[in-house]
């Protein structure tokens, strides 16, 4: 059994090509049915997101190359694009390479923003579609579950997803750094704006309990406050409300400073020097930079946040290097698991065993046959072996059927009957006999 993957991603193809090749759920199911023929392509799965289209398949061992061509052809036919136009964007991987690739994709090492969490869900979705369509068999089942496990390991053992890489999430991270937890904290939103509202939403998800909204126009304040289950507060009395807020998000269109050092000093006094932090995402800035010089107040403007994000991305990349090592060791583990899964060694061992019996008997009875020419001798051996092979043929056919239907019990029984346990395992470990039976 071979694993073959063909696909393209944001690194190899521009968005114009990616969107042409993207599969909807329905197209995905139909495509899988067309692709998986049971002969060359035995199992299949399609991961289609805005950043990648990947076709992952299990093919019979000797037709990996053929499988690759088939998948490329399938892609161009299914999405009605000319093969030439996508050829340069496609990559293909077989066996270890393919395993490594899908592990990296699931662990978000191949993502545009390394460590982003969505891709794992997308792989999961692709897998359940394949299961529904009936094109995920024993090899892909193992492979995808292993990929989930790798992704989980990477997530828990490296800091690949630990730090914020968006401005809105940065508010949460800074809040945690300063307060430990955002549970029960009060947030004051001055102004409005998409980014500010997103940041507010993240803060609420992280546990912020009270929301105040202040705006130059009261209507807008009321509307926003209602949306977030908070209260609208008077813009004219901002200094007062500043003292109640642990986190301030400032995003107004004002052309001058809305929060001045005098206001901040007063607020600090009222809150008895408890720390607070202020995020200024407006341009031009609305919080006087001098506010940041007061102790126990932390002010971040948009440039600070951008710089912070850049450093977090570098940190993620460093962590990604460690994640690659995890992936590497898991690829090796999967290889071993796959070999144990393969029916090849068992079949090879069975045939060998029967042939050994035939040769052994011939040797013992040779004396009774008298003088024979070498041709005659060869003919006898050939006769014996072909008889044995004829007898074992239906057995092996049954074993393969059990294997394809996933009946491990049955295979174990065959092994036991013929005493193949040790031989099969030894062959499995050597690994190069797995296709010994193909000329049968």
């Amino acid at each position, binding site marked *: 059994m071979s694993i073959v993957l063909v696909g393209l991603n944001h690194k190899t193809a521009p968005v114009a090509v990616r969107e042409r090749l993207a599969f909807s759920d329905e197209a995905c199911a139909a495509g899988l049915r067309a692709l998986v023929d049971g002969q060359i392509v035995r199992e299949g799965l399609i991961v289609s997101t805005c950043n990648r289209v990947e076709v992952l398949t299990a093919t019979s061992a000797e037709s990996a190359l053929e499988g690759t061509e088939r998948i490329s052809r399938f892609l161009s036919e299914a999405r009605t694009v000319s093969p030439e136009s996508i050829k340069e964007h496609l990559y293909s991987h077989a066996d270890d390479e393919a395993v490594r690739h899908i592990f990296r994709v699931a662990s978000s090492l191949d993502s545009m923003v390394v460590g982003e969490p969505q891709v794992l869900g997308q792989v999961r979705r692709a897998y359940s579609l394949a299961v529904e369509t009936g094109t995920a068999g024993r090899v892909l089942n193992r492979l995808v579950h292993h990929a989930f496990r790798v992704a989980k390991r990477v997530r828990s053992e490296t800091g690949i997803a630990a730090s914020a890489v968006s401005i809105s999430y940065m508010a949460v991270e800074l809040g945690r750094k300063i307060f430990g937890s955002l549970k029960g904290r009060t947030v004051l939103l001055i102004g409005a704006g998409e980014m500010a509202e997103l940041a507010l939403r993240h803060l609420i998800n992280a546990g912020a309990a009270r929301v105040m909204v202040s705006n130059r126009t009261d209507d807008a304040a009321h509307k926003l406050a209602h949306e977030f289950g908070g209260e609208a507060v008077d813009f004219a009395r901002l200094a007062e409300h500043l003292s109640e807020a642990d986190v301030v998000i400032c995003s107004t269109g004002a052309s001058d400073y809305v929060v001045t050092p005098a206001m901040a000093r007063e607020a600090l006094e009222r809150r*008895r020097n408890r720390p607070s932090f202020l995020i200024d995402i407006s341009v031009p800035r609305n919080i006087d930079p001098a506010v940041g010089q007061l102790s126990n107040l932390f002010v971040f403007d948009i440039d600070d946040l951008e*710089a912070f994000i850049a450093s977090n991305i570098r940190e993620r990349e460093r962590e990604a290097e460690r994640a690659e090592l995890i992936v590497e060791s898991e690829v090796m583990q999967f290889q071993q698991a796959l070999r144990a899964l393969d029916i090849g060694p068992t079949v090879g061992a069975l045939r060998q065993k029967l042939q050994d019996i035939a040769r052994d008997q011939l040797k013992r009875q040779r004396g009774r046959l008298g003088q024979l020419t070498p041709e005659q001798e060869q003919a006898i051996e050939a006769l014996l072996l072909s008889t044995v092979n004829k007898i074992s043929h239906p057995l092996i056919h049954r074993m393969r059927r059990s294997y394809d239907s996933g009946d491990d019990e049955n295979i174990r029984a065959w092994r036991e009957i013929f005493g193949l346990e040790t031989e099969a395992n030894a062959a499995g470990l050597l690994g190069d006999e797995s296709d010994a039976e193909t000329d049968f």
Partner: protein
Amino acid sequence: MKPFLLAVLAAYVVAAIHSVLAFVNKRRAVERVAFLSLAIGFMLHTASLIIDWTQEGHYPLFGLRETLSFLAWTLVVTFLLTLSRYRATALGSFTLPLVALLTFAATVIRSKATTPSAMTDGGAAWLFPLHTTMLLFAYASFFVVFIASIMYLVQERELKLKTFGAFFHRLPSLSTVNEIASHAAGIGLTLLTLGIATGMLWSSSRDGRLWHNDPKEIFAALTWMLYLALIVYRASASWRGRRAAWLGVAGFALVLCTFFGTRLMGTYHVFG
């Protein structure tokens, strides 16, 4: 006794190395190794202290060697207590190397053959171990204040300058280290007060004098005043992060003077 302490040292060294590695790598598995070896080291250490006590017939806190070993033990106890309340494993990366170092010093220093009974007998002798134990625990608490204050200052500086270095992602949050410092300072001051009081009582029951005016006593008094100021300061302003943190650092300098400095000057308080 000595081979026992060597085993303790080995466990502490393993714990220290792994907690530093865990700090650098941020790996849970390494952290677990550190914790496990610390637990083993701590149990062996406790056992060795008890064995010393029963075999030598005196409380195992006398002379430089025993003091260092006991101090290491109190640091471990304090660290474990802190850990049970706060998720601040980063504290271990700074505490455990010191613990290992103190234990190492304790294994190489030869103790002098003076018997403590000659020095500490007379008066209410039972007060003496109480006096020393409480003071060592006070010092250990102040060490925690010191480390937490440093962590506060480093992070506060990084937040203000907006340069987030390697430490930033590895240290506990500002409010956590602030709380640790403030609790540890309270506990430390209580123990210091009790330690000084028992010392005075013991001394007065022995030779009728409460105060000998020796450097160690003077430094202890200064330390006491400084930490009192720190606590009052914190309480009055509810939280004044950075200045309180600087006091926590300065206070520890005084603690070091009290503990080591006076030994060099040679006074009444040097027994070892």
